[in-house]
């Protein structure tokens, strides 16, 4: 879809942003690029709106990648998703339906400062790069900074910890920008999908407590079908379930916030692998990982379109 852009290698922030600009120019019928704000270090926070333009009311799905800087397979998947959508929307009836009936807001790199830092300085950096003059350590965990049981269990008040929740909710400009966007558009955003690594899981709320969500039935069946579809591609098993019991309890995360704020279907993917390579998933595994995840995402989307209220 973009000459010279290789979807089977990891790309720097600059390369990803150039790719986005190129798509914005060359696929204007299906793609619109816009900025929702600036990061702590002043970088633009770009989102791609993907879907067939229509004057009729259309619902939307939000997808973000790269909340945690070192999870490089996550932005790689967001790029893959866009590529597949552009390549197959004419030939694949499911993709055609998805783009006809929905918009996808795709944020390929949420934590732009952290991602850039992981490319240039510390490959295993996780947090944002914000500074607090009172402390020597930098960064906030962008997935503990949301206003949903903020800084409770599973988050840390200590600035040097990797799960530091921040000085207050939405202290991070990146979190604030996305939260503002989702608040503004929540009436038509039907699903929230966030991509992380690594654990091979498909999670849904709640993360901050052990409890069953009111629309458990539809969410659980969507997750069940999605992991089965994913497994059908390469035989890779993903666990699925509420984040609190499937992974661990964590407060202040984006998935719970999206759900609490009225987006009825919220999921978080933990992509490959389970520890053999960890954050260093080799580039040769980008294609199989993204191919199977693509099927899971399509499955969830179609299930929500057809089967869920």
């Amino acid at each position: 879809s973009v000459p010279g852009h290789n979807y089977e290698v990891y790309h720097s922030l600059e390369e990803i942003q150039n790719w986005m600009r190129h798509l914005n120019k060359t696929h204007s019928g299906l793609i619109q690029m816009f900025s929702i704000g600036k990061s702590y270090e002043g970088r633009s926070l770009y989102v791609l709106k993907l879907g067939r333009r229509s004057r009729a009311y259309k619902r939307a799905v939000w997808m973000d990648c790269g909340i945690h800087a070192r999870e490089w397979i996550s932005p790689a998947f967001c790029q893959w998703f866009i590529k597949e959508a552009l390549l197959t929307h004419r030939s694949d009836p499911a993709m055609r339906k998805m783009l006809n009936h929905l918009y996808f807001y795709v944020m390929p790199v949420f934590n732009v400062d952290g991602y850039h830092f992981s490319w240039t300085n510390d490959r295993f950096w996780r947090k944002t790069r914000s500074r607090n003059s009172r402390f020597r350590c930098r960064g906030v965990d962008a997935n503990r900074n949301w206003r949903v049981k903020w800084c409770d269990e599973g988050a840390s008040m200590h600035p040097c910890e990797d799960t530091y929740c921040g000085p207050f909710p939405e202290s991070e400009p990146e979190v604030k920008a996305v939260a503002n966007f989702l608040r503004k558009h929540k009436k038509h955003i039907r699903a929230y999908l966030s991509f992380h690594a690594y654990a091979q899981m498909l999670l849904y709320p709640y993360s901050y407590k052990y409890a069953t969500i009111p629309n458990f039935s539809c969410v659980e069946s969507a997750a069940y079908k999605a992991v089965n579809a994913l497994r059908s591609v390469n035989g890779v098993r993903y666990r699925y379930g509420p984040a609190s019991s499937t992974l661990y309890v964590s407060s202040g995360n984006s998935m719970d916030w999206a759900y609490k704020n009225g987006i009825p279907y919220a999921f978080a993917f933990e992509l490959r692998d389970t520890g053999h390579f960890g954050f260093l998933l080799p580039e040769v595994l980008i294609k199989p990982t993204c191919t199977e995840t693509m099927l899971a995402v399509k499955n969830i989307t179609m299930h929500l379109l057809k089967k869920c209220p």
Partner: protein
Amino acid sequence: HLYNNRYAGDQVIRLIPKTEEEAYALKKIYHQFRVDLWQPSSISYISEGTVTDVHIPQNASQALLAFLQQANIQYKVLIEDLQKALERSGSLQTHRNRR
């Protein structure tokens, strides 16, 4: 070398504490050595049976592994040399672009 070879000799090991006492000991030593926890995301999550993947720097690995052996805490080395694994994980194109 990528990242100025800073990860040379670093390892990633996996431990699964078999008891709460082991979990407590691990939490203490992780704090002491300021390890980079790959999973779970926080030391506070570690308890009996928790799969923990830990990135230990080269200058701490000897002392940390000696402690684990002394405490009879079993571990498995996931990544023997993080720098080598890093160099292998990217393609020639990626490395060329980075340089």
